[in-house]
């Protein structure tokens, strides 16, 4: 996609990245990199010294027991945690050659480049067309909105089902269709990364399988980072898997096949085989 009015090369609105920054640059093909990342909710540490590089245009799954910090990590990537008053972030999350927590980064601009899909489908009480066009209007998109809506709905594998009812409310769609509508809304502003926080947990198996197929397709254009409690889903759809365990520790991060066939860490083996967690 193209023709957005915002500056595609920057995540900041006004200030350029510091050319004297001595941080190690992410490896080629890395979409997002966390460096020595700690996150606290008040005195409680939710992420403990996490360093990892997430490859571009791949699906990376974050798994782990409840409370392990995987969703916190996901939300750090596009600064959704900013909305939590007691949340404190230390370390770097690099995206586009810049730490997204630098003072000159505009979170709204950041979230245009790093979209998000939530656990429960949350379409706006607007028409299908307006749901998809919403982000475009916010960013002042001056191109062909209808064309972009169609492109986004096709990208979310929803166009054929809704093309004759674009003016109907998004809330009239089924749960699975609503989630795909949210994905269309997320990809409409032409992001580079899509964060997904348990995107199929509220869906029936058929709707969930359509989302899984869609995720596979999305990874051709976008970097997909997904939190899931469903380990079989992580095994099915992801290229890389990160296993977080209690205390926000990233215990193992490797190719998904390696994690599910022969993990290095006994704790990971115990977790994925159900012996603990």
């Amino acid at each position, binding site marked *: 996609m193209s023709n957005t009015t915002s500056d595609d090369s920057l995540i900041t609105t006004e200030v350029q990245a510091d050319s004297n920054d001595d941080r190690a640059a992410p490896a080629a093909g890395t979409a997002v990199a966390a460096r020595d990342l700690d996150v606290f909710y008040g005195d409680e540490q939710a992420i403990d010294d996490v360093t990892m590089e997430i490859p571009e245009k791949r699906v990376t799954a974050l798994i782990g027991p409840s409370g392990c910090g995987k969703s916190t990590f996901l939300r750090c990537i596009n600064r959704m945690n900013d909305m939590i008053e007691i949340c404190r972030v230390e370390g770097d999350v690099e995206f586009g050659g810049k730490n997204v927590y630098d003072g000159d980064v505009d979170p709204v601009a950041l979230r245009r480049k790093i979209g998000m899909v939530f656990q429960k489908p949350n379409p706006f009480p607007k028409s299908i067309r307006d749901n998809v066009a919403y982000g475009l209007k916010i960013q002042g998109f001056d191109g062909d909105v209808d064309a972009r809506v169609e492109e986004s709905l096709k990208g979310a594998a929803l166009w054929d089902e809704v093309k004759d009812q674009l003016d109907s409310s998004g809330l009239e769609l089924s749960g699975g269709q609503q989630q795909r509508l949210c994905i269309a809304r997320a990809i409409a502003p032409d992001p580079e990364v899509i964060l997904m926080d348990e995107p199929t947990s509220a869906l029936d198996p058929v709707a969930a399988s359509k989302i899984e197929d869609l995720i596979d397709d999305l990874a051709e254009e976008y970097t997909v980072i997904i939190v899931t409690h469903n380990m*079989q889903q992580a095994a099915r759809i992801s290229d890389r898997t990160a296993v977080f365990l209690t205390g926000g520790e990233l215990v193992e991060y490797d190719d998904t096949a390696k994690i*599910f*066939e*022969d993990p290095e860490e006994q704790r990971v083996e115990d977790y*994925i*085989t*159900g*012996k603990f*967690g």
Partner: protein
Amino acid sequence: MPRENYQARLDELGADVVAMGETVCDRLDDAIEAAVSGDEELARSVIETDHEVNETYLALEDECTELLALQQPVAGDLRLVTASFKIITDLERVADLATNVAAYGGPEGGVHDAVDVRALGDGAREMVADAVAAYAARDPDACRQIAASDDAFDDRCREASEAVVRELLEADRARNAARDGPEPTDGEALEASLDEVSQALLAVRDLERIADHAVNVAARTLYMIENDDELIY
């Protein structure tokens, strides 16, 4: 520990595979004894009870399929189930080959003298027993030793086969030398000799295959333990 029922089923699968292996070794013992002694009743017993091994195989195959379908094992658990799935096939084939070996004894007793069925049979049986023990003990070194011993066993089988053929040729030569004048070849004697030789060669081939199945069990066991497929290929 969570998933206790699942863990118990995995433990039981492992124990059942070992028990199947021990049963197959017992059948192989009987088959070798029948082949050496010509004990027809023992041979019949090996052949007629083979269905029990088949039934065990099918039950364990069902259990592996159900564990895969319903429990979706991963990592070490997945390797246990998939390795066991393959190993029971090898053990079932060993039991089938044991019925062949038992039948080679025949009513007149014993395989061709040139083949030491007892020694070769015990060698093959020991490899199977060692492979089952390696599976039970999760012993990667034992797996590699079993695989390494296969070449030596193949050599023994080849030497036994050559000895049989050599005896056939020498016997034929002796018959020709004993004939005085242009008398016709003793067709019946030759036929009997060929039958005996072919049966001996088949016995050797079956024992060699039993050893090959033992190596397969060791290879799958090593994969199960260490995710190492070096012996599979």
